[in-house]
């Protein structure tokens, strides 16, 4: 019983430190390019020893790979709650693109990271991008999108999301820019201009904030205390 408790506490501490290092990597990536970040920067930011860092990650690359994978998984879960899988394929894809861009721009720490990770990469099995690819595949099977290799459609959608977030963070476009991106992506997938316009202007559910757990939970916790994590207001 006593041992179980100690094992559980040790596992919790380990998970906590793992998340702490990931969040440090994320926050650093919001202030400089990932290729300019060194292990020393993470150690200093996280206030841990070099040995502690290597207890969790073999290299900085390993930290950023894990961060990207985990963040994509958490973002996927958030989007899935807002754009449920039972809805119409085209509507779901349009909603996913718009919601994701809104979320990433509202929280520049996340948006900045997504635009700095290397895309595409070999064996890049990120859940969020896989979900987008699945929807495009389904849309092709249902005859709602042009019959083309799925990857071509996925590249149009994912490239537009990454590039769009970058543009929005850089130039502070007014609300509605993400709708224009979704509109153009749908046209590229073979949806008629009229239908694409309608799909990209459907009412979207409001985002109620981050969950309590994971990287997003840690960020939500930090946002209450630190100025470095702040979303910007939409330009009116």
């Amino acid at each position: 019983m006593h041992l179980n408790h100690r094992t559980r506490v040790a596992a919790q501490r380990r998970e906590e430190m793992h998340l702490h290092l990931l969040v440090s990597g994320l926050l650093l990536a919001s202030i400089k390019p990932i290729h300019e970040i060194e292990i020393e920067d993470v150690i200093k930011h996280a206030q841990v020893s070099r040995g502690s860092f290597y207890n969790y990650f073999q290299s900085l690359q390993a930290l950023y790979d894990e961060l990207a994978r985990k963040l994509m998984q958490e973002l996927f879960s958030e989007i899935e709650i807002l754009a449920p899988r039972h809805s119409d394929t085209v509507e779901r894809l349009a909603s996913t693109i718009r919601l994701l861009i809104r979320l990433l721009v509202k929280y520049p720490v996340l948006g900045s990271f997504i635009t700095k990770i290397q895309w595409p990469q070999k064996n890049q099995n990120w859940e969020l991008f896989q979900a987008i690819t699945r929807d495009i595949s389904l849309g092709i099977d249902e005859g709602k999108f042009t019959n083309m290799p799925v990857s071509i459609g996925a590249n149009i959608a994912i490239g537009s999301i990454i590039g769009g977030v970058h543009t929005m963070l850089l130039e502070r476009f007014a609300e509605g820019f993400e709708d224009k991106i979704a509109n153009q992506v749908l046209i590229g997938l073979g949806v008629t201009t009229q239908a694409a316009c309608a799909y990209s202007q459907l009412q979207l559910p409001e985002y109620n904030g981050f969950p309590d757990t994971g990287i997003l939970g840690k960020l939500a916790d930090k946002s209450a205390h630190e100025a470095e994590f702040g979303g910007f207001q939409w330009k009116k």
Partner: protein
Amino acid sequence: MEKIVHHLFKEDQKHLDQINESILFGASELARDHSIESIQIEDVVIRSQVSRSTIHKLFITVDGLYKRLAQRLTNEMAENCLHNLPEIPDIAIRVATKTKMALLIADKLPFLSRLALKEEWPSANPDHLIYRDIEKDIEEGIKLGCFSNMPSSIGANIIIGSLRGAFEEILQKKQPKEYSNQVVCQILISLGVSQETACQISETSAPAIPPLPAEGLVSKVVSLEGLETKADFTRG
């Protein structure tokens, strides 16, 4: 082992440029034999015979070194291609021709393309010749009414995202003959060109492969491709 020289004490700019070139080419050689992700700063030190601090001063990290290498290669390649491209008055045909030319290069020069894919994107760096050229074409297409009335960055992101994704697909496995036509066709549709016109343009536009530059880093990197002669490339 020869003594490793600390080159930072040398003020001569020409000498520093030579060091820079030597490191970039050394990094290319390393990438031919190993995956870029596995290359450590020590490998670059040994290959280039410069000190660790010189590499750190010039590129900060190995990832930074490969980002710089990619930018040099894409800029040299773009300059060469644009210089050799005949004038194409029709904007949709021009975009199709340039896109197809890039896909052809990915197919014929996989090593160079693998390195080029490390280029930072999205990027706010105004020195990216390709990004500037794409955005210029999109603006012209919108102004002439050939493309949808959208912010030019959305069109540019569609092209760049599609191209990067297609590069990765081509580098991972041999694609069917019609693949590049399909990529170009979907890009044009995404930009607002009608399906019929997009298909027609993508099937008829056949860019000639430009002669490779005789000097510069591209020329040296191409020599590492494993082609017996440069004519292997131009023969297609």
